[in-house]
């Protein structure tokens, strides 16, 4: 969880993705408690409202759930949900810009496929 916040993305998005990454890496297990927004705020010196925005997005997506008075917990099956979500967005997040860049460089589809097949190092 101790990554550094960058300037390229909104802070709350980064918080969200950090928690997701921790879930994927088994740093946070299902049904385990996630740091509270206050704890996140203190750790990263950010405003708790900002941390809350990121956490709430995860609640909306069903990855975290709130236990009143206790805190935020990772839902069962969260890991699977995250992987599925990221697979779905894989095209938008990575492939789209790859294709656009290839077009502007004049790289053909065949050349691209050759690159992918050859790049198993």
């Amino acid at each position: 969880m101790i990554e550094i916040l960058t300037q390229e993305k909104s802070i709350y998005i980064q918080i969200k993705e950090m928690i997701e990454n921790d879930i994927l890496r088994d740093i946070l297990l299902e049904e385990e408690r996630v740091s509270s927004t206050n704890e996140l705020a203190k750790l990263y010196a950010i405003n708790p409202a900002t941390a809350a925005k990121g956490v709430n997005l995860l609640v909306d997506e069903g990855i975290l759930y709130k236990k009143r008075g206790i805190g935020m917990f990772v839902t069962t099956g969260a890991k699977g949900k995250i992987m599925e979500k990221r697979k779905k967005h894989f095209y938008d997040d990575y492939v789209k810009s790859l294709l656009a860049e290839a077009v502007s460089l004049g790289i053909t589809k065949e050349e691209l496929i050759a690159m992918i097949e050859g790049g198993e190092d």
Partner: protein
Amino acid sequence: MSILTGKGITKVYGGNEVLHGIDLELESGKIYGLIGRNGAGKTTLLSILTSHNSATAGTVTFDGEPVWENPKVLEHLCFARELNQMLGVSTTGALKVKEYLRIASVYLPHWNQELADRLIKEFGLEQKKRLNKLSKGMLSMVTIIVALASKAEFTFLDEPVAGLDVVARERFYQLLMEEYTQTGRTFVISTHIIEEAADVFEEVIMVDKGTVLLKENTQDLLDRAYHISGHKDEVEKACSFLETHHEETLGRSKGVTVLLEPGQKLPEGCDISIQKLNLQKVFVALCGEGE
């Protein structure tokens, strides 16, 4: 929840109007960032909000009660001003740190001496020194101690990190967040060093040439600000209905900062680069030269 309201705050200094009818509402429980260039009117505004200075026109009220010279309201406020290194030896500068803090402990009703002592120790503040003999960094620390230990409901800080090195500045933000998460006190902090502090501000208030340009949730503002660049023609086509700022041209290329209004979307299908901006860049785009 309490609200500090400023209506039509105008300040004139010898023929010069430095604040032009500012309307402002500050809710309790938030950390506000007050950013603006030198001379934009930040300190004057903070002074007027806290009865350190009187407005030429306009009112400042706290839950409906006037703030000016009102002890009942002042109990809830604390303005830790920036102590200037130019304090004279025959004025405030003559006071020793110990005495200055002693006065604070006597007259600030919620003063927490334990916190003050802890911070004095951590900062290594020499209490026997006179204020006018302190370094810029130490003066900032005195201001910070007064602000944090005051435990006031609404605490105002004017350039609290001026003179602090980067390690001390990071420590300040940490202390601030510790105090905020523990007590939920309202903080209004003016600063030049925008990017560092941007993360702790829930709302940002941008002041330029005596007016409030915007007051908005920081994340919301950053969500709607983008830098668009590319070929001049493409950029102009893409931004035809958008609010643009800070146009920069170099040859055939053009870069511009856009702020999306609610409901507006980023231009699609144009051959342009779209990048996100940080608060500092948005600030420079809105308040920089040539705007």
